[in-house]
Every structure is written in C-alpha cells, then in structure tokens.
C-alpha cells in the first residue's frame, strides 16, 4: 500500500515536471519566433506597407479633390490657348516638303529648301485666317513656342524636326484653305521654288497638348488694378 502511494506520487511528480517543461518550451518557442530576424522583418515590412497604404489613400483623396476642380478655375478658352489639353475639331492639314527640283549650278540651293521663315509665314497666314490651335509635327504651337532654324532642321518647342512638316490647324477649313491659296500668298510664292505644299481639309483633327513643362521663373502676376 505504501509503495503504491509512492508510485502515484512519483508519477505525479514526473508528470508535473513534464508539464512544466512543456509549458516552458512552448513559451520559449513562441518567444524565439517573435525575436527571429524573419519575424522582425515581416513585422517591419507590414508596418511599412501599412504606412504606404495610408499615404496612398491620402494621395488618392488629394487627387480626387484636385480632379474635382481640375480646371482650376480656368475657362475652356484659356485651356485651349495654353495648350494644356488635347484638342480636336475641323481644320486644315498642310504638308510642306522640300523642293525636288534640280538646282541649277549657279543658283543657291538654300532657295529650294524649307526655312523657318517659310514656316513662320505659313503659321502667320493660318493665324490670320482664324486658326484656333496649331501644331507642327506633333508640337503644339503656344504663346512661348519658337520656330527657329536649327541647321538642316527646324526647331519647334525646342524639338527639332526635319521635312516634311505637317502643320495642323483647327479652324474654319474653307477660310484656312483660301488663305493658303491666296494669289500671291504662301503657296504661290513657295511653289516657284518647287517646294511642295499639300493641303487637305479634314472634318476632325486631333492636336496634342503642349508637352513641355510650364515654369515661369521671372514673370510674376500683377493683381488687376494694382499697378498701372
């Protein structure tokens, strides 16, 4: 009887000890999991993810706010004039190409190729005829656009392009065409030198937006009526 009691006690003792060890092992496994580098890395990454998501949400909200008043108080006319957006409408496509005439030996070859001045004349003529938006070889012509000789090419918006030049103008197609074909006008003068100018009336032209950044360093706004 006595020995049975001892038996039981010893079993209970051993079991107790085992349970104790089990709990400790469990505990330390959990802990080591928490402090392992992988766990820490996961924690760090998830934290960063959370922060990034928060940032994204706030930016999304901001974006929504800005798109709501996207035009920023500008009228459509102002946007078109600034070239801030793609525009479309009826108009004229003028394709200008160098002359294919052979140069006489004693003549200046420069007379037979397109110059920035010719381009300027064409643009000027189109504007006079009421063109509302113009682009040259995919470069929108805005207030700050230059049309300038750059060696054998012409530079528009600081982008060089070589002939043929495709000038697209939105406006009344008939008026624009008539302006170009005017007697003594651009086509008349240039065709003398064999420079080819094709004109096509289109019911729908798509002009790109002005692609360069607009950054005014020196110009400042003056309040209306502030300084006169």
């Amino acid at each position, binding site marked *: 009887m006595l*020995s049975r009691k*001892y*038996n*039981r006690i*010893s*079993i*209970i*003792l*051993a*079991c*107790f*000890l*085992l*349970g*104790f*060890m*089990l*709990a*400790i*092992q*469990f*505990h*330390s*496994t959990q*802990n*080591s999991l928490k402090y392992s580098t992988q766990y820490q890395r996961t924690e760090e990454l998830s934290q960063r993810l959370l922060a990034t998501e928060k940032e994204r949400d706030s930016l999304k909200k901001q974006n929504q706010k800005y798109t709501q008043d996207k035009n920023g108080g500008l009228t459509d006319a102002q946007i078109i004039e600034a070239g801030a957006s793609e525009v479309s409408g009826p108009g004229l496509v003028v394709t200008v190409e160098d002359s294919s005439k052979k140069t006489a030996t004693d003549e200046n070859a420069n007379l037979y190729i397109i110059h920035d001045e010719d381009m300027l004349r064409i643009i000027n003529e189109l504007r006079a005829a009421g063109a509302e938006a113009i682009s040259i070889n995919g470069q929108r012509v805005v207030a700050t656009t230059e049309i300038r000789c750059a060696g054998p090419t012409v530079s528009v918006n600081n982008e060089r392009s070589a002939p043929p030049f495709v000038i697209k103008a939105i406006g009344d197609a008939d008026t624009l065409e008539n302006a170009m074909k005017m007697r003594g006008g651009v086509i008349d003068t240039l065709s003398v030198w064999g420079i080819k100018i094709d004109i096509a009336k289109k019911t729908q032209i798509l002009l790109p937006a002005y692609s360069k950044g607009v950054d005014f360093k020196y110009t400042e706004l003056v309040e209306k009526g502030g300084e006169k």
Partner: protein
Amino acid sequence: MIFAVLSLTAGAIVGYLCNVTIPGEYSKLFSVALLAGFDAIFGGLKAVSLNNFDNINFLLGFFLNTILAVFMVFIGDNLSIELYYVVLFVFALRIFKNLSYLRHHLIRK
C-alpha cells in the same frame, strides 16, 4: 492515469505562469529532454497497467533517459553528427508503441 493528466496540466499552468524562457541555442536540447520525459511517463503508465511498476526504476529511467538524450544530442552537435534526429526518432517510436499498448489495454478493460 487521471492523476497523471491532472498533474501534467497543473505543471503546464505553473510553467506558463512562471514565464521562464530558454535561450534559443538550448531549445533543441530541451525539446529532446521533453520527448524523453514523455517516453518515460508512457513507459511508466504501461508498467502500471501491467502491474510491474517499479518506483525506483521509473524515477531513474525518467531522469537518466532525459539526461542521456540531452547528452547525446549535445555530443552529436559538437561532433557535427545529427544525433538529434536519431534521438527524436527513437523516442517518438517508443512513445507510439507505449501509447498503442495503453490504448489496447484501456479498450480491453
């Protein structure tokens, strides 16, 4: 049997509340010791069911098996022999054997 389970639970609770942790490099040895302890307990229970339980033998087996297992793993680690798996295998096998015997015995009873 019931006493064994109850004391095991009590020990687990006490151990959990003690909030003691083992450093990572010793957790391998400790887990082997744990397994050896389990083996001894199940062996003891089997002996109880067979009515040939010997108190001294049980206690000696419990501690000596545990210490031996830990020692073996320790030696194996130092000699870069993976004795850890061998010990795990042997003890797991024995635990399963003892458990199946206990199950048979309990069902028969």
